């Protein structure tokens, strides 16, 4: 195993690990000497011990931030540099706007977005009333349709990605702690099954890239562990917010496979499973990615 310590300190210490040639999966140096503190106050856990169910799989888990370039990393450290925050602010307006037949806005029941600070770190979560696992997006639409008498947002619509960015942004810095036991367990197992299935003509699973090869380059891309703690992500490539399910769809499409639909039960299950792979990291969305 190659262990080359990076010697530059702090934020600008950068994820310039691309030049190292790794053998195998365990890489002790990724993330060393780096820290992410947003706006000089929100401290992020960018690497930590793996949750129990991944012990033996990973030595450490890492936020995707660790694998990005110095410039991209720096953008995420300051809300004035982070274009994702513009979209979160747009959702602040929607939050206070009366929508639907009942005369309610989100603020009628939730006072302000900050009152939802514990949401992102605990979702997807089992919903007792509906007997199913719910993502943040499904929960937003439940409020829209059942409590406000409004039309639901499209699962991956601009409005939904904005709202998801707002709900993440107020929860930034909280430690991800998504439950995988109890009634959610069956869905979690379905998600794990999907994670290890080798889809498409290229026959690649999530694990082939993000578990076996994180830290390695695949063509021009530096592979991360495929964590979702930093979603939604503002991607410089398409200059917009990208949702968790949008990312899943892109990755599966790249294996030359028929993808699942955003908002589908399969992607909800996969999201639950992948979320629990990040238990112990912090909520970072909206993040910046290339």
């Amino acid at each position: 195993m190659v262990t080359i310590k990076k010697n530059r300190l702090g934020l600008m210490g950068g994820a310039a690990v691309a030049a190292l040639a790794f053998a195998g999966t365990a890489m002790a140096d990724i993330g060393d000497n780096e820290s992410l503190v947003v706006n000089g106050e929100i401290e992020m856990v960018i690497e930590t011990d793996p949750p129990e169910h991944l012990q033996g799989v990973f030595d450490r888990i890492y936020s995707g931030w660790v694998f990005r370039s110095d410039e991209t990393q720096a953008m995420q450290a300051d809300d004035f540099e982070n274009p994702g925050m513009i979209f979160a602010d747009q959702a602040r307006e929607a939050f206070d706007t009366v929508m639907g037949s009942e005369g309610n806005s989100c603020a009628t029941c939730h006072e302000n977005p900050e009152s939802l600070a514990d949401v992102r770190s605990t979702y997807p979560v089992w919903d007792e009333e509906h007997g199913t696992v719910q993502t943040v997006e499904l929960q937003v639409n439940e409020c829209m349709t059942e409590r406000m008498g409004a039309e639901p947002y499209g699962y991956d619509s601009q409005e939904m990605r904005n709202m998801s960015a707002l709900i993440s942004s107020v929860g930034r810095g909280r430690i991800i702690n998504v439950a995988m036991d109890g009634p959610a367990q069956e869905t979690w197992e379905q998600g794990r099954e999907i994670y290890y299935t080798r889809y498409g003509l290229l026959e690649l699973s999530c694990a082939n890239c993000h578990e076996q090869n994180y830290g390695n380059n695949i063509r021009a891309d530096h592979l991360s562990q495929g964590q979702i703690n930093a979603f939604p992500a503002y991607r410089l490539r398409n200059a917009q917010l990208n949702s968790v399910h949008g990312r899943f769809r892109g990755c599966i499409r790249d294996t030359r496979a028929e993808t699942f639909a955003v908002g589908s039960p399969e992607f909800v299950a996969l999201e639950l499973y992948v979320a629990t792979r990040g238990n112990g990291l912090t909520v970072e969305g909206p993040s910046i990615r290339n």
Partner: protein
Amino acid sequence: MKRHTLLAAILTMAATTLNADVIAPSDVVMNEYGDISESLTGEGGNPERGIEVMTDRGLGNCIACHQVTALEEFQFHGEVGPSLDGVGSRWDAAALRGIVVNAKNAFPDSVMPSFYRVDGFIRPGDGYTGRAIEGPISPILSAQDVEDIVAYLQTLTD
């Protein structure tokens, strides 16, 4: 062994569909190690064109995963698989053909895709559209593509 060069490159598409000597993916015969001794086209490949197949993202895109010093002029070599430098000294043509056709025979559970296979896929898609494939599945590479790659890999000697 006959070796058409320029002409072969131009006629690749026609050759793979019309040439009766082409061995279809389901008819490929390999030994217990996954080696395939017979050329899939009945002829030798064109190493020059092999370079194109290896580097083109829409064809083999081999350098997405493999570093090859001789192909340094093409940008962005991956680290998912081993360097292919010297691979022509490590393996003979039959073994190289077997690896490209279906690497999982030589390396069980390999991350490397199978480039000349048409069945056994889960949710096969139509190129990079994310939609289901309609009709019969074509292998990722043609018999000619595979032979051209094998011819090129044989030039990578220590």
